[in-house]
């Protein structure tokens, strides 16, 4: 005998009489087991990590995209009312006698002394704009000075035209940023002369880019004093000698006044257009951008939900991954369960051990997933490319889903094993 055992007597145990594990020991057993099987632990967690990361990043990016769309539209002004020609609730191309929107409608609204900025008449038409090196067919919009205020126009270079320019029908033009780039490239535009349908106009300003756009982006347009558009650029006179406008817009100072203002304008215009007495339909539309916004946000919410659903599928796949690994390792684990049962573990001890393992796996995996899933949105937000803040909602949703899948897919195989007779579990092949 090479290996002489030490001669000591192992005295009888004085134990506490308690059966099963206390929670501290359970936690230790579970963590020991996870640490002892690092590869299995990692592979199991991988499914959860990928699932949660995709839920968080897709939901966050989806939210960010929908916020970006909404905010671009609200940059155009949610308090803006726009008055169009035509009967409400009908598509374009309406027949029948519709009196065109004219400067007298504009003047009537201006006389009302409403709590608004504006009104601003707009007359737009298409024209060829020729610069020294390039020319382009673009929308030329005749308007007044207040347009800049109502539409929140900021200038990139130069300035907007003045009331004096409007009164004097000055041959001046303000270019949208894209149009400026098309005509002048990166060169200086202010001070140059362009020809609008052969009429020479001096460029006095270039607008900053607005992006987005409700009714054709102002970035692609050329703005001139409405008087110039009416008198020298386009044929705008109606048969009864009035001057036609395409739309009239105004910005309500206080959002609470929008509905009231809308109704007042409607009544005034009906009066002016002699629609009141015979109860006939309006032949104009007063539209609020807020109503566009709400239908828009419905669409973007749908988009985000759709992305979340796709991500949810990957989380489910992650859960199935957990179950798969549990089932693959079930031989080894079933023997372990049989052994633990044989040496005195109660089925409750086994179940709790596996439950804790599953909770630790899915929460840890979920946490790593949240961190990984946040990297792209946070990076985009920090660099200012795209504003996609990680919402508490997406974190809570993905963590609880990962916990649920972890528990469900992790415990189900363990439960079966814990209910096995220990002899069968020990013999499991």
């Amino acid at each position, binding site marked *: 005998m090479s290996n002489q055992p030490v001669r000591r007597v192992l005295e009888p145990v004085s134990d506490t009489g308690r059966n099963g594990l206390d929670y501290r020991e359970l936690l230790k057993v579970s963590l*020991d087991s996870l640490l002892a099987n690092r590869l299995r632990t990692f592979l199991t967690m991988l499914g959860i990590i990928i699932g949660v990361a995709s839920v968080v990043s897709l939901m966050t990016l989806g939210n960010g995209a929908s916020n970006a769309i909404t905010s671009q539209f609200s940059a155009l002004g949610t308090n803006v009312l726009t008055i169009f020609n035509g009967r409400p609730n009908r598509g374009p191309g309406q027949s029948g006698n519709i009196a065109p929107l004219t400067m007298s409608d504009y003047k009537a609204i201006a006389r009302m002394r409403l709590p608004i900025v504006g009104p601003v008449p707009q007359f737009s038409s298409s024209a060829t704009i020729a610069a020294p090196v390039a020319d382009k067919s673009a929308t030329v919009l005749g308007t007044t000075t207040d347009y800049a205020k109502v539409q929140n126009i900021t200038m990139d270079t130069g300035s907007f035209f003045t009331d004096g320019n409007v009164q004097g029908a000055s041959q001046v033009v303000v270019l949208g940023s894209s149009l400026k780039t098309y005509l002048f490239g990166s060169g200086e535009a202010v001070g140059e002369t362009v020809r609008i349908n052969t009429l020479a106009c001096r460029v006095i300003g270039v607008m900053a880019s607005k992006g987005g756009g409700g009714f054709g982006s102002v970035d692609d347009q050329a703005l001139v004093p409405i008087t110039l558009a009416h008198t020298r650029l386009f044929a705008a006179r109606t048969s009864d000698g009035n001057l036609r406008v395409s739309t009239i817009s105004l910005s309500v100072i206080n959002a609470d006044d929008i509905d009231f203002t809308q109704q007042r304008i409607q009544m005034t215009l009906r009066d002016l257009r002699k629609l009141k007495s015979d109860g006939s339909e309006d032949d104009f539309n007063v539209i609020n951008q807020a109503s566009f916004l709400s239908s828009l946000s419905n669409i973007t919410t749908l988009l985000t939900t759709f992305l979340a659903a796709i991500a949810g599928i990957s989380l489910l796949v992650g859960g199935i991954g957990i179950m798969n690994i549990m089932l693959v390792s079930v031989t080894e684990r079933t023997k372990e369960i049989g052994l633990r049962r*044989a040496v005195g573990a109660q089925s409750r001890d086994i179940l709790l051990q596996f439950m804790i393992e599953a909770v630790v796996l899915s929460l840890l995996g979920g946490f790593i997933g949240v961190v990984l899933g946040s990297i792209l949105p946070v990076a985009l937000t920090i660099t200012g490319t795209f504003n996609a803040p990680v919402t508490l909602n997406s974190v809570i949703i993905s963590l609880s889903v990962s916990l649920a899948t972890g528990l469900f897919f992790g415990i189900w195989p363990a439960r079966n094993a814990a209910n096995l007779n220990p002899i069968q579990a020990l013999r499991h092949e």
Partner: protein
Amino acid sequence: MITIEQMTKVYTMGEIEVHALRGVNLTINSGEFVAIMGPSGSGKSTLMNMIGCLDTPTSGRYALDGIEVASLNDNDLSAVRARKLGFVFQQYMLLPRQSALANVEMPMLYRGIESKERARRAQVALELVGMGNRLDHRPNELSGGQQQRVAIARALAGSPSVILADEPTGALDSTTSEEIMYMLKQLNREQKLTIIIVTHESDIAAYADRIVTIRDGVVTTDRKNEVPHV
């Protein structure tokens, strides 16, 4: 002390009934070293499982240290196993990725022994089986004989009434088997451990003080081994 009277065990597999035990009578006193022999399928393992409280008999009586096992529920059986029994398996059954010390400590977790005391007892038990210098080794870093020693340490660390070993040397070569049996014999003498082993080999059974033979689910011979090996 083990008292078994008229124990039967019937396994029902669909239509077929297998009578694995057909009325076993057996009394084993504490401190005895008993070997159970018999041909394959005679019911040795079945009897060991009954003694080990891993399963309950179909009929008959079984008392372990005065506890009537037949009337216990699953949780009570677990508690009895934790305190009164130590198991040694043919295939060692060690947790593959845990150290020898952790493996020996494991059963004591389930009976409320404090962690310091667990570690101390596990270390003493490993020293007793000659593995005191391998506490941190994993099973795959140990030979078969060494793994079985760790498994024996695991069985005895909690000072059980009885150690049950179903073919403990079945996976070992003859030299290693002799070493293991020699060690069990010493533990039986010096620690006053009650040991019951199942074996096919009379060389192995020769280490025991008493040899019980089973055939077709009943005890056929039960004799003292007048000149036990060693």
